[in-house]
């Protein structure tokens, strides 16, 4: 009798988890994000807060600053009008799509590469930044490019949920890839000798290298990583408005000004390459 009871309890628990699974993410997705943000006069953006030059938490002022943030503000103004309010929510590579899907944020502008896989899940705007994946190593390291990593015993540090983790497995299949939570942690792990190189998009790596003189970016870009602004699948109206805003910004020079503001002084960074469409 007792045994039956415990089996019953087990089945109950299983059923509960299964039913949770069944009623999953159909929730807020079908509302019109553009209409909703126009009503509240607020666009909520998912942004990085750990990425120098793109989105970094400024401890002193308690706000996030970077190229993505300025882009987000500018696009908001052009989508909602001069009085439009941009709200920024911290995301990581791992959390940004789930947060967009459950309606916590309206759009993602967080160093997000446009890939065919992601395009099945979300809609991307046109390219707003053309990055490429590169490597960050200690200055005295023997590693010169991604081919040097393709050996047994090499360890590469990447960030969970980023395309760079997937890419580096393709380019250096023999190396071991460790995925960490965010860029700060991956870089700390590199400093602690947990890996031979850290890999992600060059813009981000240049930002880290600028702050840490003992490290430099090597090997050039070995992939193309076009960044786009992501909105939930089916939010075509919002996507079109954003595309329009980016095109306007490129035309009236705002885009070039922002690019110059954040990347103008970064040694080794090619502004022309980054602004390709």
């Amino acid at each position, binding site marked *: 009798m007792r045994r039956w009871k415990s089996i019953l309890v087990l089945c109950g628990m299983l059923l509960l988890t299964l039913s949770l699974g069944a009623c*999953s993410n159909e929730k807020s997705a079908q509302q019109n994000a553009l209409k909703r943000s126009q009503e509240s006069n607020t666009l909520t953006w998912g942004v990085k807060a750990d990425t120098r030059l793109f989105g970094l938490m400024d401890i002193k002022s308690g706000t996030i600053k970077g190229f993505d943030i300025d882009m987000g503000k500018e696009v908001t103004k052009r989508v909602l009008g001069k009085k439009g309010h941009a709200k920024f929510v911290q995301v990581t*590579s791992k959390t940004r*799509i*789930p947060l967009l899907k459950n309606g916590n944020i309206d759009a993602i502008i967080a160093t997000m590469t446009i890939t065919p896989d992601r395009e099945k899940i979300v809609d991307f705007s046109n390219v707003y930044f053309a990055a490429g994946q590169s490597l960050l190593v200690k200055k005295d390291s023997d590693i010169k490019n991604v081919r040097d990593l393709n050996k047994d015993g090499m360890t590469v540090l990447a960030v969970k949920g980023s395309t760079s983790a997937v890419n580096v497995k393709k380019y250096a299949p023999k190396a071991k890839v*460790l995925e960490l939570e965010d860029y700060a942690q991956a870089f700390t*792990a590199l400093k602690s000798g947990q890996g031979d190189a850290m890999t992600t998009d060059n813009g981000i790596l240049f930002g880290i290298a600028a702050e840490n003189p003992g490290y430099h970016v090597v090997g050039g870009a070995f992939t193309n990583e076009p960044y786009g602004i992501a909105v939930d699948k089916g939010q075509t109206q919002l996507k079109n408005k954003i595309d329009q805003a980016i095109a306007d910004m490129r035309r009236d020079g705002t885009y070039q000004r922002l690019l110059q503001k954040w990347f103008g002084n970064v040694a080794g960074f090619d502004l022309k390459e980054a602004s390709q469409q």
Partner: protein
Amino acid sequence: MINVFTQHWQELLLGFGNTLLCSVIALFFSLIIGSTFAIFEVLPYKVLHIIGRVYIEVFRNIPLLVIGMFFYVVVPQFFVTLDGFTAGTIGLTLYTSSFIAETVRAGIQAVDDGQMEGARANGLTFMQAMWHIILPQAFRYVIPPLGNQFINLVKNSSVLAFVAGFDLMYQGDAIASTTFDTFNTYIVVGILYLIITLPLSYYMRYLEKKLA
């Protein structure tokens, strides 16, 4: 949900194995270390008493994540390189052992003083009395709270995910972020954790009944 399992069973199995391995190692060592410090606390030597107190208070009151990150990124800068699995398991062991020490100490103190006095009067040394008389009774008292600690330990092993220890949670994160099927992935991961913790939970209950 079935898809997640059929397409990624290799990663999930690897993660499951690592979680299980980490849990077994941490359980074994934290039980030994914890019991040792518990005995330190009831010994009549002041120095040992203080050492035990400091150890317990330090590791009990620092978040596990901080201890794990310490062994992963700080220790390698000064001493020896530890991979994520080792660093996480060491952190988990130290963290859990402080809780086990407190639990076992409570058990030892719950045993009637007369037991120790009687054993000593019959010619046993302090350590003999502790080993043969006090500890067996103490452990019987603390089986329910110990069971809690063991279950917590298994769940806390997910700290490995943050130091690239290739455990179940790490693999879950990796699968969720490549398939974007966050919901189902974490449900599968949750069920896999249940497969470890539920039998443990039932076994502790069985043990409690058998020894009571």
